[in-house]
């Protein structure tokens, strides 16, 4: 399998009024194309910090990060934006949709910053909305949708730029277990279609969907195991490719 992202000896320190918070203390990991990774660990262990670094939202204090074959750890702010724009899809715990936009418009946002929005990309956004089951609600606004539906929009948005890797920070954290399962099924389908997914979660039954579980503690990797994933039980979504 091709390695799609690799971090070497990554550290991240926060400086707070003279105090140093060592959120990451040397993390080395590599992620293969098509992998489905669950990042687990107690609160404050540095999961979100790592995910943000993987998502190029921040730069490490030291260590290297290769995305594809580019070293992104030393890139400028604009270059990082470009990387996020083209190669990364984000899914957040609190959905993070833009309130004044409709479903389609929200899905379109990453393309906006790639500077390619036209009729064909609009059609692509509509297809994605249909794929996540929101074909009927293209012109609804986030406030008119349930949490699960909003997260589906977020997933569609994370797919629209056809990213190398999808990063999800507790994507089911705000959802009930039934809706969580639906969302996980959706992610699982995407993974089966070839998408690389890295997901932070607290819950074991959510992590059970993943193929690999990385546990963290105090800013370090504690364990890294491959598991037999749950798989989708007769999903109707299996045939969908974004």
């Amino acid at each position, binding site marked *: 399998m091709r390695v799609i992202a690799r971090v070497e000896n990554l550290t991240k320190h926060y400086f707070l009024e003279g105090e140093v918070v060592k959120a990451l203390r040397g993390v080395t990991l590599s992620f293969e194309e098509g992998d489905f990774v669950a990042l687990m660990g107690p609160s404050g262990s540095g999961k979100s910090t790592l995910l*943000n670094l993987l*998502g190029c*939202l*921040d730069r490490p204090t030291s260590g290297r990060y290769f995305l594809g074959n580019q070293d992104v750890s030393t890139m400028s*702010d*604009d270059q990082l*934006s*470009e990387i*996020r*724009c*083209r190669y990364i899809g*984000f899914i*957040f715990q609190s959905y*993070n*949709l*833009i*309130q*004044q936009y409709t479903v389609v418009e929200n899905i379109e*946002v*990453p393309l*906006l*910053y*790639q*500077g*390619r*929005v036209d009729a064909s990309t609009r059609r692509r956004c509509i297809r994605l909305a249909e794929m996540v089951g929101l074909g009927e609600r293209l012109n609804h606004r986030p406030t008119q949708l349930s949490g699960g539906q909003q997260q589906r929009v977020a997933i569609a*948005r994370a797919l629209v*730029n056809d990213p190398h890797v999808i990063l999800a920070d507790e994507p089911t954290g705000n959802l009930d277990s039934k809706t969580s399962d639906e969302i996980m099924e959706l992610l699982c389908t995407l993974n089966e279609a070839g998408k690389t997914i890295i997901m932070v979660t607290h819950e074991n039954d959510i992590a059970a969907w993943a193929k690999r579980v990385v546990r963290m503690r105090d800013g370090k990797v504690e364990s890294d195991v491959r598991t037999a994933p749950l798989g989708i039980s007769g999903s109707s979504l299996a045939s969908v490719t974004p």
Partner: protein
Amino acid sequence: MIFLTKIRRTISMAIRNLWLHKLRSFLSVLGIIIGTAAVISLMAFGEGSMQDALEDIKKQGLTNVIVTSVKPPEEATSQRRSFVANYGLTDDDHRRFVETLKNLVTATLPMRVFPAELRPVTDSRLYNGRVVGTTPRHAIVYKLENMIAAGRFLTEQDEEPIPRNVCVIGSELAAELFPGEDPINKTIRISGKDRAFVVVGVLKDRMPNTSGAEIEKYNGDMYIPLKACRSLLGEISFIRATGARGAEKVQLSQVVLTVDDSGDTDAVRDRVRGVADIVRAQLSATHPKKDWDIRIPLDRLEEAERTRDRYRILLAFIAGISLLVGGIGIMNIMLATVTERTREIGIRRALGAKRSDITLQFLLEAVVQTTLGGVIGVLVGLSMVFLVPYVASQFNYRVPAAIHNWSIILAFSVAVAVGVLFGWYPARRAACLDPIEALRHE
């Protein structure tokens, strides 16, 4: 291309966001609206009255030096005594001007002006107008070539060899004495005189001249050949109506000297001043009393232009202040917006927006606001420019207004510039937010 699409998108997004907060957006641009409207209308009214003043002055001819007879002050106080007040410019003065100034002056126009009751011979209508004894050069000096409504102006043949009893009359005089009739070839009589004058020409409506001590309403004038005037009156100008027993003896009420206007403006200016100096010296030497006065329209023009410049500076200052206030309003609301939408900024940054994209978004939002404010302000200002003179005219006031295209462009572009200037800081602040912090913002 990509940049243009981005701009278009961002603008439509900005408009949508503003529409979402209609009242707030309106209030935040109110300062800009008022500022722009004030600039447009103050400028129009200021320029209007300035233009009026300048027109007045230009009508007197910028190359003219106007010498007038003035009743000397000691004469004015001794009104009670019965005697003939003898003062003012004489034919000798005029002759001397012609001689000494012949190389500097292209025309000299002696005039004799007196108020009179005018009536048609045929009926009892009456009009209090002025009789102006003048020469055909009057038409040149006062630029009347396009002001003839009917007939002609006075000609050389009206003066030589024997003066004819003909007249050219102003529009109001014509309308009052001959309502609904053609005044040409009608006859007008001057009260108290036994001579009648045949109308040979009628002038168009002319703006009154308000630049002198008293307003000259040209439309009530009756122009007759100077020689006819002299043989009509002798040297007694008129019997004073109010002072009962006094009379005044004035040979010439006014002499207009038109200075040669060849060469550049500075040369002409110097020449006008030179002529004025010579005239002043001559009159001081020959007149023991100060019974004359010199008016130089050019001087008044320069003064008026200075006044206008001062007014413009004042206006620019007012405009600056009001737009500054407007700009602060915008900045304030934009800072609040940035705080309020911190999370949205985080989302956009996470999804690939560069700092410049965020800057552009908020900058354009500010600029769209001030631009709309500018447009509304221009419209409000323009409607004031049309409404105020209209309302004033209902109360018989004249409020002159002149709209300059550049005042609109100026007000508008200043409004846009205010958006850029005062939107810049909030936009930069939005752009420099840390994406992770912003995403965590409630």
